């Protein structure tokens, strides 16, 4: 009698504990699943042609990731592709999701960034019927292509504009993290600044991530305090804080990146260094759909107008007319392919 009680009591406790742990784990998994499910939405009609996009940040950034999502939508609207998008954080996520899409028979999977190239090279041989494309990078396989953008060309033009508008002679760059394409863009920007004002100072800073808008704004305010009056931002969502800082201070101007950001703060934005991602995605998606795709580095520049400098309405009122003519003539030379690159550092 007693022995029986003594046995059943801890048994019950254990069962209860187990039930609780199982319940907690279930909750945890449910949450993870919810994140995945809501992150990876599929849309469009059922066709054979399926395109997936992996972005390293939220598509609400109105910049690098937002532009890519518009590109994905373009493949749906123009080519009738069935599309899927997922936001990923770590390199292990890159590889895992590349495999998922390969295993589910997607025709084209775009890893949106320089940082996706290693994962693409590792996964691609296992899924030969899927084409993997990275935006940036130089890695090529039979079913891997890299889109390479001459982002340095319009960055150089942006630097010329910044120097022309700056009254303090101090201009600044705010990046997310020190990725090679970002660094190269800032170097080109600096060269552009010095082409107009050789004595101007260019301060290059990084937020340390691409999400923290509060930190992006504080970095901008610290630069403004230091005397910078034109800021070139390339920090995606964190960069939205830079526009907010410019809105709150008079006489401070911002240059946007990746998407046309001229409307984010019309009173403060001089222009944007734009990558026409919809154009680039559509081009490669068309090749994949028609079966003409070959793995290679696909280069875009000012010449084909995929990467371009888009001035805002404000710029004409703020910059020196003579400088703007120089910007135009350099741009014309870039378009003609006749511009001798003064730009040092790695190409993106």
């Amino acid at each position: 009698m007693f022995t029986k009680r003594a046995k059943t009591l801890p048994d019950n406790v254990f069962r209860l504990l187990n039930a609780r742990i199982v319940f907690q784990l279930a909750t945890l998994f449910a949450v993870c699943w919810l994140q995945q499910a809501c992150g990876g939405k599929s849309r469009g009609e059922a066709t054979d042609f399926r395109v997936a996009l992996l972005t390293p940040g939220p598509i609400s950034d109105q910049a690098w990731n937002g532009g890519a999502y518009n590109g994905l939508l373009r493949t749906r609207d123009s080519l009738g592709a069935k599309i899927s998008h997922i936001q990923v954080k770590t390199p292990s996520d890159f590889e895992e999701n590349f495999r998922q899409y390969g295993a589910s028979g997607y025709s084209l999977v775009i890893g949106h960034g320089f940082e996706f190239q290693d994962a693409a090279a590792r996964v691609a041989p296992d899924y030969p019927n899927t084409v993997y494309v990275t935006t940036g990078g130089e890695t090529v396989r039979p079913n891997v292509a890299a889109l390479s953008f001459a982002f340095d060309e319009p960055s150089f033009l942006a630097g010329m504009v910044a120097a022309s508008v700056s009254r303090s002679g101090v201009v600044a760059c705010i990046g997310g993290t020190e990725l090679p394409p970002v660094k190269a863009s800032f170097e080109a920007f600096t060269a552009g600044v010095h082409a107009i004002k050789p004595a101007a100072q260019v301060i290059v800073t990084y937020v340390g991530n691409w999400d923290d808008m509060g930190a992006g704004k504080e970095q901008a305010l610290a630069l403004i305090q230091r005397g910078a009056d034109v800021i070139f931002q390339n920090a995606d969502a964190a960069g939205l804080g830079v526009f907010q800082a410019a809105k709150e201070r008079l006489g401070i101007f911002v240059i946007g990146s990746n998407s046309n950001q001229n409307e984010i703060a019309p009173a403060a934005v001089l222009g944007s260094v734009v990558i026409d991602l919809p154009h680039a995605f559509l081009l490669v998606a068309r090749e994949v759909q028609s079966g003409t795709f070959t793995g290679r580095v696909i280069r875009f520049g000012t010449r084909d107008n995929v990467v371009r400098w888009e001035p805002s309405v404000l710029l004409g009122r703020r910059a020196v007319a003579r400088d703007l003519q120089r910007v135009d003539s350099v741009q014309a030379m870039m378009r003609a392919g006749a511009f001798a690159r003064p730009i040092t550092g790695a190409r993106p």
Partner: protein
Amino acid sequence: MPTAVLDGFLEATVRSATPLAFAALGELVAERSGVMNIGLEGAIAAGALAAFLGAQIAGPEIGFVAGGVAGALVAAVFAFFVLALRSQQIIVGAAVSMLGIGLSASIHRAMVSAGASTAQVQTLASLPVPGLSTLPVVGDALFAQPISTYLLYFLFPLTGWVLYHTVFGVALRATGERPLAVVAAGHSAAKIQLAALIFGGVLAGLGGATLVVAQTGTFSDGMSAGRGFIAIAIVALGRWTPRGVVVGVLVFGAVSALQFLAQAMAWNVPYTLVLASPYVLTLAAMAIFRGSRTAPAALGQPLDGGL
């Protein structure tokens, strides 16, 4: 340091410290009642989104309040699992953290896809306090801030007073040390912890709200950027007292401001090293102050069946 640079640095310190101060003060109260809520990050994210939505519909003041409400809801989820189901605090906290971050990101994403979200909302204006804002050195930094910052100046002393000078405060602190004694004295330990958790949730939500309505004027996924976890570290750093937490948030704010300044002044330090400094500081402080005042004795322990 030239005056203008010093002023800028102090202002950046206070701005960087504000969201941390809300979250850390809330967590302090929760931890003093014996509950370790590591779901803070989720409440901050939810508060930020709610503030963004509220500000779109009815202006930044309402947005600020909405942030507090959202934080309370997230804390209520945590409290349900921890107090009603007696689940492990750390496990529930981790899940709630992910829930808050994931859900707010998903809701925002759905709104962006549907084109229902405007990009920018109005922010709270800064209200200089007549007289005080003209004080040398600290005037602008402390007294030319939005109303949300002034709220903190009342909340910290008020919380200290309630914790140390009221019956409820004694019962709350006792719950964190010896819940059985509190029950023996005729209080409900679970109700006290519920109150502490909801208070903590409201404050974490307000912390998230300040990111939107007092600073950036917009929302983005991941904009909480680990502030919830830093707030938890600050509570330990501040040795579980309101005064210690004040010092902790100011130190963290100052280190953040210093890393913005270091880059802006083009001091020749690798930026990654500067960015890592707040975290290095936390670890250093933990090592230096170890044992000088221990955590509440019952911190993190689920209440026994009968409480």
